């Protein structure tokens, strides 16, 4: 379970002001909003990358202030954009990340094989990342975020650069992890993906949470004219 209370943070482009939410085990929370609404910064802060001004992050029994490392090791983070070590092959990178998480060689081998199959990496796993397509890089980045079977998963635009087949694979992988009990925070501009996968959705605007609930609750709250997340966003944030 991931619990965030009154979180305030700042980066050169984004701010977060008093954000609170909770993601129970096995649930997917989608964070949506305009560009620079603070959702990217939220992902960084949850992954332990950004600096927190005030507020509290709690992962099950661990509090960020006292057990930061214990939270971080149980967190998997897909950055946006994902920047991987270009000189390594996908396999080598996953092996390196797995070993840094203290996974035994046998476990690493099993996890790499499992993730490569789930994401249909095929022979691209053994190609140098420098030569890989954006879609392959995205898949390798996602595999690296999940190699240690984290219980808190923060994914910033997990399906970007992927075709419809790749998106389906990522969706299935996320649902599998949720089924196994992980709490997933998905930061995305892909509203259809959020609709399909999220148990709950929060809408950020200028660093503040302006809406929270299931899709149905958001539609009811905003009295949106169309029964979609896009309609909700247009109602509360206005047209482009």
């Amino acid at each position, binding site marked *: 379970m991931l619990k965030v209370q009154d979180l305030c943070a700042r980066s050169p482009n984004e701010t977060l002001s008093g954000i609170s939410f909770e993601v129970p085990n096995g649930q997917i929370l989608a964070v949506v909003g305009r560009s620079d609404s603070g959702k990217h910064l939220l992902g960084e802060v949850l992954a332990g990358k950004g600096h927190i001004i005030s507020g509290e992050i709690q992962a099950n029994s661990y509090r960020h202030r006292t057990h930061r490392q214990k939270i971080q090791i149980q967190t998997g983070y897909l950055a946006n954009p994902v920047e991987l070590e270009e000189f390594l092959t996908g396999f*080598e990178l996953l092996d390196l990340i797995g070993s840094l*998480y203290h996974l035994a060689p046998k476990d690493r081998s099993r996890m790499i094989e499992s993730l490569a199959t789930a994401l249909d990496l095929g022979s691209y796993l053994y190609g140098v990342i420098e030569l890989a397509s954006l879609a392959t890089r995205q898949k390798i980045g996602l595999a690296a975020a999940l190699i240690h079977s984290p219980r808190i998963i923060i994914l910033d635009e997990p399906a970007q650069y992927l075709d419809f087949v790749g998106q389906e694979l990522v969706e299935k992988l996320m649902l599998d992890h949720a089924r196994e009990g992980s709490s997933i925070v998905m930061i995305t501009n892909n509203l259809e993906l959020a609709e399909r996968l999220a148990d709950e959705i929060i809408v950020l605007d200028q660093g503040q949470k302006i809406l929270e609930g299931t899709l149905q609750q958001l539609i009811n709250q905003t009295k949106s004219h169309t029964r979609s997340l896009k309609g909700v966003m247009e109602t509360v944030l206005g047209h482009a």
Partner: protein
Amino acid sequence: MLKSSARYWQIRAGQSLSKATGLDYFLVLLLGCLLYLIGRSWVGSTIESPGVILLTMINVGLGVGILALWVILLWRLPFWLAIGSLILTIWWLTTSPIISTLLEHTAQPEIYSQLLVLLTGLGGLGAISALAQLTNGYKSGRPSKYWLVLNHKSPLPSYSGLGSLVIMGFLRILRDRIFVAVLIFLTLMLLAKISGWAIPGSWLTIVITGIMTLSVMISRKLGPLASSLLTNFPGLPTTKGAIDFALGITSLVIVAALSWTILFGLLGLTATDTLWLTGIFLVGQISITLIARSSRESAELGLLGGWWIVIIQLSALAIIYQIMWQFNLSGVMLILLVVLSLFVALTSYQEPTHSATISSTW
């Protein structure tokens, strides 16, 4: 029939190669030790200095390795092209004055000659690696199955990640085209000098300039790696200091292999000098690490997994130095043993302070 047979052997060679280059360190180490012992008993009767014996063995191994890599490289070409290239290679090897000069130097029981052959061999290895890049479909953008003949498909035997980082550091250097190009250039200069061509500059100028250039490139390549890893994977249970430490070891190994050997040969550094240099460097590195560990955050992360492991490792290193001191082994031998002991220390199992496996409290 012939084609299918060639294909069969191509596949077999590929599988063997995958196994052989799967970085199975213990096997390689074992074979290396055996080869060394056999070689020592064979060569030892005519050459007195253990440093020269070691260098001779390394050079012979390097030569055999380069030839084997070349054959493996040819194996990936179409069958008749591979056979043609092989015949051409054999003809060149048997008639080239460069090769005969190199063989003469290899047979010389002098450290100076052995160092020249070593540098030339390293350059040759770089050249073969560069060719491997081209034949791996690097230009065409196809995923390469065997990248620089070092692509491995099974996990490294590292539990703490630091051993993996050392290997990745090596790959970072070996896969840099500019580094390979500089290495080839240095080799060509040495080859030209060996062949008696009028190259401006003394041996010392060429070697020192080359090594300095390579050292700067190594630092520039490995420096940003820690920040890059931690930016993209902030949850990794390690610190920038720990990653820098592992990559520092990588730099040390590469630079030491090139420069300390040369300094030992050309400037006449004694084994005792090298011992002190190595000792001072390692004590410095370990002291910095221990001081860093005293802060609360570093202590929580645990660079080496616990104080007792640090004490054991320090004791092991002290014993190794004591043995080296007592037996008065050469600097080259000492460096090799230090590198091996560090490698073993870094890749051996270390109890993590945090486990990535989730406890039942979840």
